[in-house]
């Protein structure tokens, strides 16, 4: 187990290195000159040149990359061009809302999607199945912002049940914190929910056709036990894998959701940085998100052994 974990971590190193290269290259493919961006719009060509040399932007790309990556490895993601704050501090300030939305969304989506997928598979071919799958494909197709705005319109503006926009940190009390999360989580969660529900149904259909399910029925076991213990445990790994892959889509969705609900999270931070060409922030955020994705999927790989005794590391 430990050996396997280390092996997988080692395999993640080249992946992260390539992510770093792509991230680094982003700054150089564009039509915007980083040095003049940093110098500001009022800078003279001489000042821009001075900055270029001071930042090492005149050196060969490989040289620049090595020194930048070295700094990143030592935990220094650079400073924002905009407000001169270290990128990590900026991210730290904004992480709470983003993490809250992401975690609650996963919980919300999984808690609903798995039972829905199981129900659809168990009733395959009936109206229950058709209804659930129709809802899933609709939820899967509707843009996050449409769902978000409709929810705001209905629940915040018309019914005045929930806050329209914004975010309240957990430190300010659990009530307001949760109330501000409800709509973002639901609108972001629908896509994720649909994804998992479809995967759950497909996997369960396959599992329910297996011989051991027939054996379980021949033993006189009840439906609940067959579905939950015998079938779902076998279907768990593909479902968990989908959750892992879905995390990438979820992160993209968080960016849009934060804009719809005016939540000051990492998504907003990224958009603001992109619009203002704040390279260190863009690079830092992309690197951190990618690292999170890689680590989450590694954790998911390791979790396979939990559900399936045939997998040994």
């Amino acid at each position: 187990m430990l050996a396997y974990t280390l092996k997988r971590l080692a395999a993640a190193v080249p992946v992260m290195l390539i992510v770093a290269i792509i991230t680094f290259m982003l700054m150089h493919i564009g039509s915007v000159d980083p040095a003049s961006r940093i110098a500001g719009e009022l800078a003279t060509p001489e000042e821009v040149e001075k900055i270029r040399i001071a930042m090492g932007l005149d050196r060969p790309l490989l040289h620049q990359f090595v020194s930048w990556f070295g700094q990143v490895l030592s935990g220094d993601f650079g400073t924002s061009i905009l407000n001169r704050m270290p990128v990590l501090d900026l991210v730290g300030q904004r992480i709470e809302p983003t993490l809250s939305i992401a975690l609650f969304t996963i919980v919300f989506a999984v808690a609903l999607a798995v039972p829905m997928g199981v129900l659809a598979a168990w009733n395959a071919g009936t109206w229950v199945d058709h209804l659930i799958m129709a809802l899933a494909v609709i939820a899967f197709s509707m843009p996050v912002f449409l769902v978000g705005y409709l929810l705001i319109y209905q629940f915040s503006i018309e019914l005045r049940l929930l806050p329209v926009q914004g975010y309240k940190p957990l430190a300010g009390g659990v009530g307001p914190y949760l109330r501000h999360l409800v709509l973002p989580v639901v609108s972001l969660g629908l896509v994720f929910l649909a994804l998992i529900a479809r995967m759950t149904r497909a996997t369960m259909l396959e599992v329910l056709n297996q011989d051991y399910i027939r054996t379980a029925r021949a033993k006189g076991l009840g439906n609940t036990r067959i579905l939950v213990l015998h079938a779902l445990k076998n279907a768990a790994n593909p479902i968990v894998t989908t959750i892992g892959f879905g995390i990438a889509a979820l992160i993209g969705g968080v960016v849009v959701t934060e804009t719809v609900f005016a939540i000051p999270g990492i998504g907003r931070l990224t958009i603001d940085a992109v619009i203002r060409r704040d390279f260190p922030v863009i690079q830092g955020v992309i690197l951190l998100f990618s690292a999170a994705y890689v680590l989450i999927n590694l954790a998911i790989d390791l979790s396979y052994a939990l559900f399936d005794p045939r997998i040994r590391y």
Partner: protein
Amino acid sequence: METPILQIDDLSTHFFTRDGVVRAVDNLTCHVGAGEALGIVGESGCGKSVTSLSVMRLVQSPSGRIVNGAIRLQGRDLLALSEKEMREIRGNEISMIFQEPMTSLNPVLSIGCQLIETIRRHRGVSGKEAWQRAVDMLRLVQIPEPDQRMREYPHQLSGGMRQRIMIAMAFACDPKVLIADEPTTALDVTIQAQILALMSDLQKRLGTAVVLITHDLGVVAETCQRVIVMYAGRKVEEADVGDLFDRPRHPYTKGLMASMPHLHRGLGNGQRLKEIPGMVPSLLDPPPGCRFAGRCAHATALCTTEEPPLTETGPRHWVACWHTGAPAEVAQ
């Protein structure tokens, strides 16, 4: 004759597919007495497995349906029971062993878990008692180190071992009837003999009635007292084992026997095993008359128009053929 423990009357199980109705089992009547071993023989696709699933009421729905008939366990009609009542019967009064030991056990649950859940489901005993019972059952099916096996998973065991566990599971609640659907087909020949011997032994010791479904007449000869031969969803012949082997009446039965190697008769002087020409007819809109007519050397006009009734041609020997009066040696 004493009242049978399991009585199947006029059973018809059909599959309603997009292309039409598949008559997998058509008007089948048979019975098993207490402690008796009945063999059901036929090629794959002849309806023998559907028969067994019908008895368990596990025919794949919604396409498959039992459309007619009665299945009585000690006089109680299983088809009239609710699904909940039926669950009390499955694994308890009637249990089943399947063909594929490799896939019939749940790969993610331990052997112990799978044994114990059956026992607890039907016996309402404590976990500790169920564990003890499970270990005893493993010992009964001659599995070494049962305590250790309880904690292992199916993939850690060989095919023969897994089939022993299936047998242990099937006998765990002292069923009245055990249905074994091709229990040895997927196993090595040497293991086959062991498993059959084990089943016969347990059957005699525990007095369980056994329905053995197989395509292998040799297996039937070794294990069963009575045989039913099925062809294309219908029963074509029924007799005591010895009687059937000595005096097969239906051309299909004769064909089956001719296609089987005989140890004492040998295959010497360049003789080939006989095969039955042709193919099993489609069960979708089967032709009228005898379903074997298309492959039968003795078929006449009557055979292709009228369905032959089952007639008793000897003591406890029934045949559905228009030509049972024909000389017995015609097939050879």
